[in-house]
């Protein structure tokens, strides 16, 4: 029974993490795109005049999508049309099962591994589940019985097949280096230092593999510059053109879930996952108190900075709107001052001596934080790339996949195999 509860807790944690990141990412996408394009971005929806720089918009979006009429084409294939969005969403979420979000957590003398399912063949599981994601998109395109969605589905199939192979080749190089298909092994293997100073991350050991992998991940998630299944300019909105309301919301969420999965995979495989460079677990536990104080100190400084920024806005925009929105900078400044005070209070309580158990928990949390930080960065990279690069043409996409990346992947595999055979694996 305990194992069920433990798994359940981990599943809930992972699910909440992803679902929490989705609205945040949507916000980052919209606001980031706006700032990159010298626009203001979403700033209208607000609660009592507080707009949180557009953060209220995802909530408004959800409300809108929930209450919208579900318009569906008459000539659809009913069952598959209804199935497709759930398939996409399920596949997007279930990938997380094998990704370790931390090393372990010791609570009450019991050690818990911070991964939902530590599969022997975790890496293959990720690939298998990701490959099933194609079905959702293909079926959405086919069942809606519309030429444009259909073309989107066709594009998605060909694209996914092409890039899955490259993704597998890239991962095989990594597998050779770390000698395991178990994701926890791979992450654990990235904790060491190369030549005594360089973190032994996947990206250092497999730079070409990393380039191939990240490109394939972008293609697999259908994100720009590989979002041809959507291709607004030629096929309107591709496979999800005929979906509306909650069904559309599922596709939309699934895209961001895929992004988080992709980001988590990149950080776990090539950027050491939860590993903090130069701070291995024993070091973390040893200097836990110091680190905690450092974190609190930084929090105080950052909150004060934010508070000052808001106070400047208070001064500058006094009575600009003449309504509830004028309250916003005041509330912002107050909030950050309270945070700064709270952090300063915690700092003053001298958390330096939190004991061995506390140190262990702190170390685990710190590692989880490091993992989440990496995931956030790579998720942001997805957005950043989207608003930087133009979309590929379909023939370019195919040429890149089959004529450039496939030979490179094979070469990488051969070289890696030779080196591993000569030098020995990272184990």
């Amino acid at each position, binding site marked *: 029974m305990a194992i069920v509860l433990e798994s359940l807790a981990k599943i809930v944690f992972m699910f909440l993490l992803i679902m929490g990141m989705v609205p945040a990412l949507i916000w980052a996408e919209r606001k980031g795109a706006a700032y990159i394009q010298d626009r203001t971005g979403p700033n209208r929806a607000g609660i009592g005049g507080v707009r949180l720089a557009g953060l209220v918009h995802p909530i408004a979006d959800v409300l809108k999508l929930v209450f919208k009429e579900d318009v569906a084409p008459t000539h659809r294939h009913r069952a598959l049309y209804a199935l497709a969005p759930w398939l996409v969403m399920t596949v997007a979420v279930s990938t997380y099962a094998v990704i370790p979000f931390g090393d372990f957590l010791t609570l009450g003398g019991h050690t818990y591994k911070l991964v939902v399912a530590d*599969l022997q063949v975790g890496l293959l599981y990720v690939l298998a589940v990701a*490959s099933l994601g194609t079905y959702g998109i293909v079926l959405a395109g086919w069942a809606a019985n519309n030429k444009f969605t259909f073309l989107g589905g*066709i594009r998605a199939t060909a694209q996914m097949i092409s890039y899955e192979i490259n993704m597998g080749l890239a991962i095989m190089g990594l597998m050779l280096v770390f000698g395991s298909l178990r994701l926890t092994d791979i992450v654990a293997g990235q904790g060491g230092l190369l030549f005594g100073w360089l973190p032994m991350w996947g990206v250092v050991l497999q730079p070409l593999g990393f380039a191939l992998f990240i490109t394939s991940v972008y293609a697999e998630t259908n994100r720009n510059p590989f979002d041809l299944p959507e291709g607004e300019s030629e096929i309107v909105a591709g496979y999800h053109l005929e979906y509306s309301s909650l069904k559309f919301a599922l596709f939309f969420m699934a895209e961001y879930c895929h992004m988080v999965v992709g980001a988590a995979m990149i950080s776990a495989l090539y950027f050491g996952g939860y590993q903090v460079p130069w701070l291995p677990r024993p070091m973390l536990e040893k200097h836990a108190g110091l680190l905690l104080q450092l974190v609190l100190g930084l929090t105080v400084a950052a909150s004060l900075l934010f508070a000052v920024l808001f106070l400047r806005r208070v001064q500058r925009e006094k009575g600009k709107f003449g309504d509830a929105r004028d309250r916003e900078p005041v509330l912002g400044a107050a909030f950050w001052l309270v945070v700064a005070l709270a952090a300063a209070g915690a700092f003053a309580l001298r958390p330096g001596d939190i004991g061995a158990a506390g140190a262990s928990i702190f170390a685990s949390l710190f590692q989880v934080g490091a993992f989440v930080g990496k995931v956030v960065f790579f998720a942001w990279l997805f957005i950043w790339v989207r608003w930087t690069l133009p979309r590929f043409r379909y023939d370019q996409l195919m040429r890149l996949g089959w004529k450039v990346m496939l030979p490179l992947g094979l070469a990488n595999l051969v070289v890696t195999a030779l080196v591993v055979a000569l030098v020995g694996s990272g184990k």
Partner: protein
Amino acid sequence: MEAFLFFACGALMLLGGVMMVLQRSAVVAALWLVFAFIAASGVFAALSAPFLAIMQVLVYAGAIMVLFLFVIMMLQGPVLEGERKRLALPMWPAVAIPPVAVLVLVGGWLANRRADALPAAPEGFGSPGQIATLLLGRYLLAFELISIVLLVAIIGALALGNRERKLPWS
């Protein structure tokens, strides 16, 4: 637990297979086949062979059937008029096959139930390492021969598909 998983997945696999045969629409039939593959992967998992289970999904469901679906769609286009129709009435008895088969299976298992009927899987059974050792050690020759057969098959398919045109090497 394993036995339950085995029979449940087996039943689902049979259901998938029968439904695939009964479908009028090629696309839906392909999907039922995918369903059967995933159920087969469950059977492998129940038999303590996770590598095979995952490979079943990855290779058959994730790659081969996607290609099939791609080809079907390319040739056929969006939903055809007849595809939304239900199954023809005389076909329905065929749907009864999986439950009957499951009943027979479960009955057989119950009749011969002995605690030690199923030998425990040896350590490392079905792991990638073991399979690799087998494939690249004991069965290397067979493995390579199969590879050659597959290669010949691919070339043959190309030759047949391109019969009208002049092949570059002929």
